[in-house]
Each structure stands twice: as C-alpha cells, then as structure tokens.
C-alpha cells in the first residue's frame, strides 16, 4: 500500500500549483495555530476567578481591527494575483500544441489523435510536448481530471471546451471523470500514458494499441468522406452561390448574420451551423439546410466534418462572407 500524501508531479503546471498549495498551507497552518492557540490560552488564563491582570479593557477600536484585517487582506490579494497568473497560463491555449480530441459519454472517454488513431479511456501523450485537449460531451456534463498534471476542465454537451498541459515525467497516471454523471460515474476513468516522443510517434504510426485492419485515416480524411456522403458540396461550393456560402477559409472568419450581428466562425459556431442551422443564418441566405443532422451525426463525426471544413483554404479572399457584402462596406 502506498502512503503518499501528494500526487506525482508530471506536468509543467504541477510544481507551480504545488508551490501555491504549500504557501497557502503554511498560511493556513500559521493562522489556525496562532489564533486557536491564543483562544485556548486566553480561555484558560482568563478563566473565571483567575488572578490574571484584567486592567485597561478595550471594547472597541477600529485601529486594532484595521491592524489585524489589513495584513491578511494583503496576503490574500497576493495569493489571488499569484493564483490568477498561473490560471491565466493554464487557460491560454498554446498555438503550437498537439490537438487531441476527447468525447465524454456515459460512461467512457473516447479519444482521437490528430492522425485518426483512436483510444478508449486511455490517452497517450508525448513527453515534453504541449498537448491540447478539445473536448465535448455527447450527453451530460463530465470533467476531465488528471491529478498528476493538476489539470481539470468540464466537458460540456453542446460546446467545445479545451484544456492543455505539458507532461514532464514518463509514466501511467489516473484520468478521472470529475463531474458527477450518473450511475457508473466512478468507473468513468482510465489512464494517461506519458511516453517519449518517438514512442508516441510509433504509437500513432502503428494505429494505436487496439489493432484494427488498415492504416488509420486522419480526421480530415474521414471528414472529407462524410462531406461527400452527406452531399454538402451540393450547396457549399468553392465560391458563394445562392444556395449557400462557401466554406473555404470560413474557420475563424467573421460572419455577418441576418440580425446584423457579427460573429466569429469558431468551432462552436461551425458545430451549431451543422446541427442547428436555424440558430444563426448568414446575411443574404435562407435556411435551406437539412434539419436532421442533429440525430444523424455523432459528436465524433461532427468533429471530423469540422476538421475537414477547417482544412478548406481553396479560396483566398474569404473575408466577404455574403454575396451582398460588397454593397454595404
């Protein structure tokens, strides 16, 4: 039996979070011990009938109150600033990270690497490389929690959330679902394997540990197949036309809606445009999208479509999202 009192430190965040943790622990221990010791000492020293000196009793003093309120406040604000700084680093996704796609569903984790290799309840990640998880839930709210990385974020249905880390130590670390999600919540877990970058490359090349016939196809390739199968090209051609806007270069572009609102075409926008096309109609178009993709497509397929759409850059000038755009600058 292992009697550790701290989780292993296996990411760049771990020592930073732990440093904060130990400083707050020191403050907590200091204030608890000093104040509680004083309380007990006073309670005994000034017990009824004791001969202790009770002269010059003060009943009210804003000076004293300020004197003992301000130092803890200043310490608290210092902890706040330090914590916020580390948090901002945690929540700012690096541009150069390897993006791994994670779907949570009752009660398993489904993982896809960029080249299409899939895993269930396990995530292989390369040592010393930044890894970004893009996550979505197929049913209720879950949370990816990897204690050894001090990394956690909720996995929510209907929108993408992200999480990043940089592993610093090889090994096998628990991965927990940390948002109560139903009967088998406690078994919705698995492991994160931190392996050397060349082992990770080999892992991807051999198609993961679950042998399946044929080489893995990447998310973009599978998205392209779906794009063809669903006949998206029937309306969304290389250039805008009356049936639908072009999807080339759409990812990240600003879209002007019928309501006049200007929104960025991020992952959540593109996802919603597929399964709930009525929600945001681009100016100049009618809603002629088939309405039934919601029931047909899994989150995994939607992601594949998104990856394919994001790879479309055939058109250079895609900033003009609607045919009318030129007329109202």
């Amino acid at each position, binding site marked *: *039996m*292992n009697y*550790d*009192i701290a*989780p292993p430190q296996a990411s760049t*965040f771990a020592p930073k*979070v732990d440093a*904060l943790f130990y400083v*707050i622990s020191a403050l*907590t221990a200091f*204030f*608890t011990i000093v*104040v509680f010791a004083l309380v*007990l000492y*006073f*309670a005994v020293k*000034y017990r*009824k*009938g004791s001969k202790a000196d*009770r*002269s*010059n009793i*003060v*009943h*009210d*003093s804003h000076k004293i*109150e300020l004197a003992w*309120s301000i130092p*803890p*406040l200043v310490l608290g604000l210092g902890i*706040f600033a*330090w*914590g916020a*700084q*580390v948090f*901002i680093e*945690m*929540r700012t996704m690096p541009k150069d990270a390897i993006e791994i796609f994670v779907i949570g569903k009752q009660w398993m984790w489904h993982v896809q690497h960029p080249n299409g290799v899939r895993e269930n309840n396990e995530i292989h990640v390369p040592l010393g490389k930044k890894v970004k998880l893009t996550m979505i839930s197929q049913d*209720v*709210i879950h949370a990816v929690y990897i*204690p*050894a990385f001090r990394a956690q*974020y*909720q996995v929510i*249905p*209907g*929108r993408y959330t992200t999480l990043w880390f940089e592993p610093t130590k090889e090994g096998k670390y*628990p991965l*927990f*679902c*940390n*948002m*109560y*999600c*139903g*009967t088998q*919540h*406690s078994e919705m*877990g698995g492991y994160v394997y931190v392996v050397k970058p060349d082992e990770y490359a080999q892992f991807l090349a051999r198609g993961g540990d679950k042998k399946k016939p044929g080489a893995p196809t990447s998310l973009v390739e599978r998205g392209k197949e779906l794009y063809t199968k669903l006949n998206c090209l029937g309306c969304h051609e290389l250039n805008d036309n009356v049936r639908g806007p072009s999807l080339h270069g759409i990812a990240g572009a600003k879209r002007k809606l019928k309501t006049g609102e200007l929104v960025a075409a991020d992952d959540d926008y593109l996802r919603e445009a597929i399964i709930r096309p009525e*929600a945001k109609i681009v100016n100049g178009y009618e809603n002629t999208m088939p309405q039934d993709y919601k029931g047909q497509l899994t989150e995994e397929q939607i992601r594949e479509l998104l990856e394919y759409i994001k790879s479309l850059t055939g058109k250079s000038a895609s900033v003009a999202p609607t045919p009318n755009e030129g007329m109202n600058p």
Partner: protein
Amino acid sequence: MSATVVTPGEAVQAPEPESSSVNYLNVSHTLRSWLLTGDHKRIAVLYLISVTFFFFLGSIAASLVRIELMSPNGLMMESETYNKMFSAHGIIMIFFFLIPSIPAIFGNFLIPIMIGARDLAFPRLNLASWYMYMIAGVLVLMSFLMGGVESGWTFYTPYSSLTTSQVTLCLIGLFIMGFSSIATGLNFIVTIHKMRAPGMTWDRLPLFVWAHYATSIIIILGTPVVAITLLLVVMERMFDIGVFNPANGGDPVLFQHMFWFYSHPAVYIMVLPGMGVISELISNFSQKRTFGYHMIAYSSLAIALLGFLVWGHHMFVAGQSMYQGVVFSLLSFILAVPSAIKVFNWTATIYKGQVRLQTPMVYALGFLGLFLIGGLTGLYLACLATDVHLTATYFIVAHFHYVMVGGAMVAFLGALHYWWPKMFGRMYPDSWGKMSALLVFVGFNLTFFPQFVMGYMGMPRRYHYYYFAPEFQPYHIASTLGSSVLAVGLILPALYLTWSLKYGKKVGPNPWNARGLEWETASPPITTNFEQIPIVEHEAYDFDHGPIDDTWDEESPIRAHEVKR
C-alpha cells in the same frame, strides 16, 4: 450519572417557584393546541423535533456512505444505491437541517424575546412555514422511497433533466421548502424592524439578531432564484422546454450560474446564524462585552451582500470565461475579510474576560478551531490555480464539511446547550455536555482531516468505487473510523438532553449569568414572553449592569469592571 455534578442551575437563586407557574409548554396539553399554535416558541419546538428527525435520517445516509467507502470495491451497495444515498444525505442535510436549523428553531424562539416582543410579526405565517417544511419533507422522503434521487443535491443539468429517478417530485418538495424559508425570513425582517421594545435600538440588538437579520436578507433575495431554477428543471423534465438542454439550444452552464447564485449565498444562510450564536456564547461565557460589536454586526451585512457576488468561484473549470474567473476569485478573497474580522474580534472578546468553560463555551471554542480551518481552506478554492486541481475532489468535501458541520452544526449544538434550560426550564449534566463537545470536536477532525489529504492527492468526490486508485483506501478507512467517534458525540446529547427534560435540575431565569432579554424572563418563558414589555436601557452584553452572579464558583469573584483601572 454522578450526583456530584455541579450544574450551573444549582448556583443561581431561583426567585420564583416555576414548577407551579404556567409557561408556554404547560399552558395547554392537547395535540391540537400544538398543531394550531401561533406561539413562536411552540413553533420553534415543533421545528426542533422535525429538524432533529431529518438530521437523524441524513446522518444514517452519511454513515452508510462512509461504511461503503471503506473498500475500493464497495461493501454492500450497487453504484445506483450509493448515488441515491449520497444524494439523500446532501439533500436532507442542506435543505432540511442546515438551512432551517438555527433560524427556524433558535431564531424563532429567541428573536421576539431578545428584542422584547410578544411574538413574531406574523404568527400564522410562522406556523404555515412549519407546515410547508413538513409537506416539503414528506414529498422529498416520498421521492426517496419511490425510487430515489440520483442527481446529488446540486441537480446539475442536463443530468438532472435526463435521469429517470424521482427528481421531479423531489424538486417540487424543495420548491415548497423554499417558500418555508422565505416566510421565515420575511417574518424576521418585519419583526426586527417593527417590534423592538422601547429602548432596543439597532445599536443595542444582540449580535444573534443582527446575524439573523443579515440571513433573512439573503433568504428573501436568493431563495426565489433557486425556486425558479428548480422549477425550470421540473418544466424541462415534464415539457422539454429546453432552457438548459443544449439539444434544444439551451445552455447547461446557465443552470450552474442560477444554482450557485442562490447556493453560494445559501452557505451564509447556514453559517451566519451560527456566527450569531457564537457571538452570544463568547460574550456571555467571557462575561464581557463583545469586542468591536459594530464591526461584527456590520460584517454580517457585508457577508450577506458580498456573498451574492462570488457564485462564479464554483465554476472556475465550468466553461465560464477566464476573465470571469479572475473577477470572481478577487471578490472571493475580499469576502474572506469580514469573516476574519469576526474571528479576531471573538478572540479579543475572550481576552481579559471571566471565562467559564461550561458546555456551550466548549462548543464555541470548538467552533473557532473548526471554522478557522474551514474558512482558511476556502483560500485554496478561491485561488484560481489551486482550485483547478482541487475542485470537485475530497478537498472540497472536507472544506465545506468544516464550514457546514464544524461551523454551522457545532454552533447549532452550542445553541442547543446554551438555550436548552431557557426552552425547557431544566439543565442537563454539564460534564456529559463537555464530553460530547469534545467527542464531536475530535471525531469531526478525525473524519474530515484525512479528506483534505485525499483530495489533494486527487480523489474525486461522489465516487462509489476507486479500485483503479486504491492508494486512497487508508484515508477512507481513517475517515470512517473517525466518523464513528463523531457519531457517539452526537448520540450522547440526544440521550442526556432527553433525560434532562424529566430529571434535569430546574433552573431560574438566568442560569448562566448571561445578558440579554431572554434571560430576564422565566425559564421556560410564559406564552406572552414577558409580564410587561421591558424597557431597554443598556447596550448588549453590558456586564457592568444587570444581575450579578457571585456564586458560580468557589474562587473569589472578580468582575471586570471592579478591577482597578
């Protein structure tokens, strides 16, 4: 029980023969006279009985959860049963013990007496609030018996709108419970504003009353929000309205915002009345005016108002924007200050007092120790980076149990032991009281301290099995063993307090030599509280005036103001 136990009641002269006198308890004996009473004291007793009953149920659920967790593979339940068990524990303890306990029992009993009134402003609304509490309780217990509730006390959507367990019935029960709270809060606010005795200015209000005033503000501002939220979940389940369901364009995170907008302030609904109790205990058992009376009173109001601005600190990893996280974190750190002021001021009150270490004071000292840890561990969770690692783990479980159980429940027990002789006219054996206070303190720490370590190591809360992380088992076993000590500490008062109802020593009006109008009326009080409405001439906790008790112990009585200056 030893006959040599010295109870404080012995020492004080009882000027009138209470045994023959009529009081609120013996004025009538029919069941009807109790069930249709408008007397705030009788309603408080009704609440005491029913809240104790629910506390007992919640404790059984807690014990079963703790036993189950001794093995990584579980001992006796299926996961579904386990989930229903921790949900039942949370729902009962939060909504039927912590929220109503101190306000509905002691607030109800004491606020009119403390301000020199004959009753609350709306006696029938007060009785109605108890009936709503009971109806809510019956509905919620029915939902447990008819299949159970598997969604935890937090009811996060979309799980709570999709699960097939009896969530709808349970939520309707909690919706009604909300109205019970609102009725009580409204009653307190009106009573405190309009019914104070002559001379009972705001500056002279006991701090217990100030704390309840602040609590009532939170109740009437916050409870409607959670009532609407729970109703929306019911409508989501029944009519699929899609407010929280992303498949219909809803936002599940919106639920978390609306839920915590109430449920964070609700933490203060649970703990502010406890702080009010502690202010009374510290001052009266130190026989000294509270240090910084005004700061303690105003800090209650500050907590009530600031408490509404920090709900987002429950959602640092829940898809709320990074900037929101930073703002909520900052506000949470600022909110720590008023609580810190209270703790420091209590400590300063003991300083140079005449401290009597009787049972209620032992509970108050225990509260200080546990609340210090509970409050300070809040810093780990207000701090963004550490919260990312600790949120939803056993660290949070330990933290809020230190605040809710170590704070609110220990204060409840302190209040129970302090006002018990006032409510029932008889004293329990002090040595048993002290022993139970000590057992609660030790047992509580043994139960919950290991959970801090376990949480830091990454043990998620609400886990039935942990067989793929068996390193947590020693902590679970330690915690369960500790909880058995805690259980003994809680069973003891149930026994000796019940015993004291018949066999306890009778006490006079003021067995503790305490200050406050409730100690100037008979124990137990008459139905109208006072023969004549008192006129208040001194500030609260004025130990320079009022009855002098020099017979409390054998040592020479020295009183603070008599010492040469």
